[in-house]
């Protein structure tokens, strides 16, 4: 009897600790969809209309622009402009809840910094920075700054629906 009780207690302890083994963030990966951030970013860069020339920047620099360290995301793809405009594309992939939160914070920081930078530089760019596209699709967070947000959303939805 005591033996059985002892075993039951151990089993309960083991079962109680199991959920803490993982923080997969599965509850925040929308619909369980997994996208390739590189392909997604390239699709956006090729299909959204931008005024400026958009080029991919180094991952290290991309993380720096968004005040993120390497633990804050799984992958990052950023297409930036020449500096003449505030236009930009950023696609981050994440697996944990903490990463999703940090990425969102990084996007917020980037937007604020760009607003500060363009205020006395090219004030006309502030319009597109007022309401940039920020969306989570599956395991990715997408950030787009462009003139036509509706078009950007359409391009994104088109990609997501086909995958």
């Amino acid at each position: 009897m005591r033996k059985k009780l002892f075993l039951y207690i151990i089993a309960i302890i083991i079962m109680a600790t199991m959920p803490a083994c993982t923080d997969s963030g599965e509850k925040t990966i929308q619909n369980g969809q997994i996208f390739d951030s590189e392909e997604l970013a390239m699709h956006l860069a090729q299909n959204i209309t931008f005024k400026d020339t958009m080029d991919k920047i180094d991952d290290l620099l991309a993380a720096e622009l968004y005040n993120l360290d390497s633990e804050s995301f799984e992958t990052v793809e950023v297409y930036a402009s020449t500096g003449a405009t505030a236009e930009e594309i950023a696609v981050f992939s994440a697996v944990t809840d903490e990463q999703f939160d940090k990425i969102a914070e990084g996007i917020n920081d980037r937007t604020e910094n760009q607003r500060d930078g363009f205020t006395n530089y090219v004030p006309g760019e502030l319009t597109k920075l007022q309401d940039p596209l920020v969306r989570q699709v599956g395991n990715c967070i997408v950030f787009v700054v462009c003139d036509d947000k509706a078009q950007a959303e359409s391009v994104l939805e088109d990609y997501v629906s086909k995958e």
Partner: protein
Amino acid sequence: MMNKKKKSLIMAMTAIFFIAVIAIFVVYDFKTEDKPVSNIPEQDVQTNNEAKPLAQPDLPVPLDTDEEYAVFKNSLFIGDSRTEGFKLYSGVNNAIFFCAKSMTVDKIVSGEKIKAQGAEQSIYEVLDGNSFEKVYIGFGLNELGWVHIENFISEYGALIDAVKTSQPDAQIYIQALLPVTKERSSRDRTNNNEQIYWYNTNLVKLAQSKDVVYVNASEPLVDESGALKPDSTTDGIHLNSKYCKIWAKYLAEIS
């Protein structure tokens, strides 16, 4: 009685062992699947063998001496939005950059702080915290509209003095103000090539008076008229990725 006690003890120790194993899994988050690999370049992985974050904002990455941009190792680039573009697209990743949109020489000299090396710093803090072999300074674009060019030259001179004081062994380069496209020059009352030529003439004199090097990297960037090539820019002023690399390569050759 003793056997029963022994058995209970063994079972208890077995249970503790399993709990400890589970605890180890929880603490170290042991994963059986491969984690997606970040797209950070392999050279950065190799140069960060200790347990440091791979993304180290603004820290120079040592390159082999035969690397194309080895000349920029232990260098500091100070400038405005054009220098920002250089930082993003040139491929130079072994230098420190102190640059920002709308940055001007007077703001820098007054100690305005911007993000550099992962922290908000003034130029003085960056200079005091590092030892540089070369310092490249590139201003003038945002000052083209100043009423008195003397103020620009005076502030620029003060910046050079500050660099010299902090970095007595560093070679200082004043970068010529790059031209704009012919199209931009023809319609812009401020950002035009006549004004740029006037500013560069004064920068040459400043370099001579301060005993620093005036370097003009515009040769591969301009057309036969001396204006910025039309395909190098969207707005007639800021270089795209391709031409930032050309700029960097030429600057490396003439530095």
